[in-house]
């Protein structure tokens, strides 16, 4: 299996349910005004703004961006301790306790979707009680990134193994996919040509970011359809 994702920009309504669901599911550091001001706030899924033109001839596009889970991930090539690597199921994994905080991978990622913990995460009061026990809390000096909610895959695999059956389609979905109210994010096995995600990747509207770098991302996008049929 090779897990991948397609995000339909025509369906995305910029509601950010995916981003907040991701933060909750993966115990992202809560943040602070200082982190935000320093542009060091850790949010694995962010909206990439592309604003062009001058008022009033201005257009803007928002694209949900996370680790693109490249098939040729530049971040893994530079990690001196193999803390980040391409796992057999296609996700680019990160082992926190191996990370030595060199930030080579952060700089190597062309999508700038790897995050370094510059600050000790703060969990005031009982806030750490509401964290997901399946996901480790990271420490200062460690790099982190979208794992495609890999812990969910592990749990789904364990459950399938216990029941003596293979993993069913749809049994494992990351939190962002689950939360999207307009079903703009489609997730599945790219090795299965019949899967929805494979079909959408073959769609004419499909594209990947920074294709020219040869990173072969497993997150693809479907372009938003052109403007009004009768007006443009």
């Amino acid at each position: 299996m090779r897990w991948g994702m397609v995000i339909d920009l025509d369906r995305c309504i910029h509601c950010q349910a995916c981003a907040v669901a991701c933060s909750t599911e993966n115990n992202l550091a809560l943040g602070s005004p200082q982190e935000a001001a320093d542009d060091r706030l850790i949010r694995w899924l962010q909206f990439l703004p592309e604003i062009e033109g001058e008022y009033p001839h201005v257009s803007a596009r928002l694209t949900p961006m996370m680790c693109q889970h490249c098939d040729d991930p530049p971040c893994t090539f530079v990690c001196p301790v193999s803390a980040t690597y391409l796992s057999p199921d296609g996700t680019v994994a990160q082992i926190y306790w191996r990370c030595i905080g060199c930030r080579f991978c952060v700089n190597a990622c062309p999508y700038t979707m790897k995050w370094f913990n510059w600050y000790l995460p703060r969990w005031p009061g009982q806030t750490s009680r509401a964290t997901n026990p399946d996901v480790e809390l990271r420490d200062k000096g460690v790099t982190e990134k979208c794992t495609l909610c890999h812990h969910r895959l592990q749990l789904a695999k364990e459950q399938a193994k216990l029941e003596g059956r293979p993993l069913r389609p749809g049994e494992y979905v990351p939190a962002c996919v689950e939360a999207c109210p307009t079903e703009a994010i489609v997730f599945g096995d790219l090795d299965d040509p019949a899967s929805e995600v494979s079909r959408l990747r073959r769609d004419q509207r499909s594209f990947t970011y920074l294709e020219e770098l040869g990173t072969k991302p497993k997150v693809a996008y479907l372009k938003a359809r052109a403007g009004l049929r009768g007006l443009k």
Partner: protein
Amino acid sequence: MSRRSFLLAGAGGLAALSAGVLPKAPGPVAWQEAGGVHRALPEALLPSACGECPAGCELLLRKVGDWVVGVRPIEPKPCLRAYTLPQQLVHPDRIRVPMARDGGRGGDRWTALGAEEAEERLASWLEEARGRVAVLVSEDGELASRAWMRLGAALAAPHVAWEDWVHGDGPVDAFQEATGWARWTPDLAEAAGVLAFGFDFLQALMPPVRTQEALKQWQERKIRPEVVTVGPRLDLSSMRADEWLPCRVGREPLVALAMAAMLVKNKGWHPSAARLPGFDALVAGLGRFDIPGACEQAGVQVGAVARLVEYLADRRWLCLGPRRRLADQRPVALLNALLGRVGEQGGWLPEPELRWKSGAHRPGPAEAVPAAIAGGQIDLLLVYRANPAFATPEPARWRKALQHVRRLVVFTDVYQETARLADLVLPVAPPAERRARFVSVDGGQVRVREVAPVMPAPAECPDPLDLALRVARRLAPKLASPMPTDAEALVAELEVAPAAARPFTFSVPEWTAPSYSAGRFHLLLETPLALLRMTGGHLPYLISAVGPHLRQWWETTVEINPETARELGVADRQLVKLSSEVGTIHARAKLYAGVPPDAVCVPLGLGHTLGAFAGKVGGNPAELVKWAAEAERPLWTQTKVNVEAL
């Protein structure tokens, strides 16, 4: 026995023993270190509801051990706010016990009270003040909030009001004027297309789940509905729209009026419109309308408007606009009527109303309360889940009134600005910790949806519905009119008033430009979905979801056109001072080409003065907005400000 057969028999025996005697491997479990011993924690997905807006979305909460650690959506999927529910349960700002003020009003010294003592105090205060009580409630879809309003009516309180300052309602006042019915909802799911006038409907239209569900349904249609927005700023809805028609600030209604006049001129109205009262007078009136003059005033090209009108006439789109001045709402309502979109599928539909059979009076305007306090008519103000000291235009007016009211009782989940001024603060637990009852209208019937608690509430945290009913029971002999004292009887007293809208009556709308306060730049206010109704500023993941186009995170930011910024000598991310006739705040400049050069835009919902995360994170832009005493509605859009680099 050979050595080989001995080993084989041994291996076989061990395998059999493992299969038969050893326990089966456990399912996926979470582990917690407890006193040096790892033990499995029970895990469950439990049905619950989001209490963030009246929609009360159903969802599943993932509970591991004693704690809620996750949210699983169920259809229709909730908005982003639901995913913060685990954090809300453990938030450091949460009020967990009743608190009585200890010391001067506005100080932070409190004495914890037991639930019974708090109930006793509240009941005696209400008894003492009856007839001179005001009740202000934030609509959350629950029976509990209605119970407190009902108690206000039973006490003959002169003011019982819903908090409705920043709801995204649409031009409902204009519909009420033309049809006699006040409650209307846009049928987005069936709309042929949407034309929004100065209305960031993807963020502001309530409830968000309905908008999201409608847009999901659009994708299943053969021909996807299209969206055109008209407005001065490239907001999130305009970014998502098929076309954005920029116009001058505050002139969106004029564009709507020009479109209506063009429709009339082209005889492009829907046949149903011609049968409505006042149609002939409207045609004559709009026939004299100066379309080029209006377009010039609005800063749009006549050709662009004409193109849209041609398109509209064929497709009969749903027209949306915000609930601003009545004069601003009328053109949008009129356009809908001309397109046959009033009272029809895919248009604006009248909504039935939930009301009391006993005729307990209808809620009045919230904004009458400060004047009533100043006039000495109110001795006790009970605020249920609202925060007028923060979330109103010119909130200093409310703060002044709250300082002067003899007794202030506030129900709240977290410590906030209004609670800080209270004499008695009562905690409201999230629906996950109590038996919440959501009431709505379903198929013309009252529908009550009960949600069981998934974890216990703190020991001294009273259930707000039970508390209202117990207080009603205690005060029964002294109430001005009787009130049901158990939940079932209270529900039985609710009835559905069917929508009684008469046919839309046309009138020739007179539109005059709004008057603005003094200042150089128009103040545009964004209503981010993350901080819906100016709430949620205490939740870190929501503060990180404001203004994704400019990363307006964790701090009040102000969008300034790059040209204007150059002229003012303001750099991107520089701190600036915004000042209006009534207030001053500091904000971080964000250069944005999507905001016009004569305006600046600030998101609403940040700038709290207290809280572990929310406190002192920027300024509250509501402090800049001048309250207009003659207004029918809070006028969020008629303020001008000056900008100064710091």
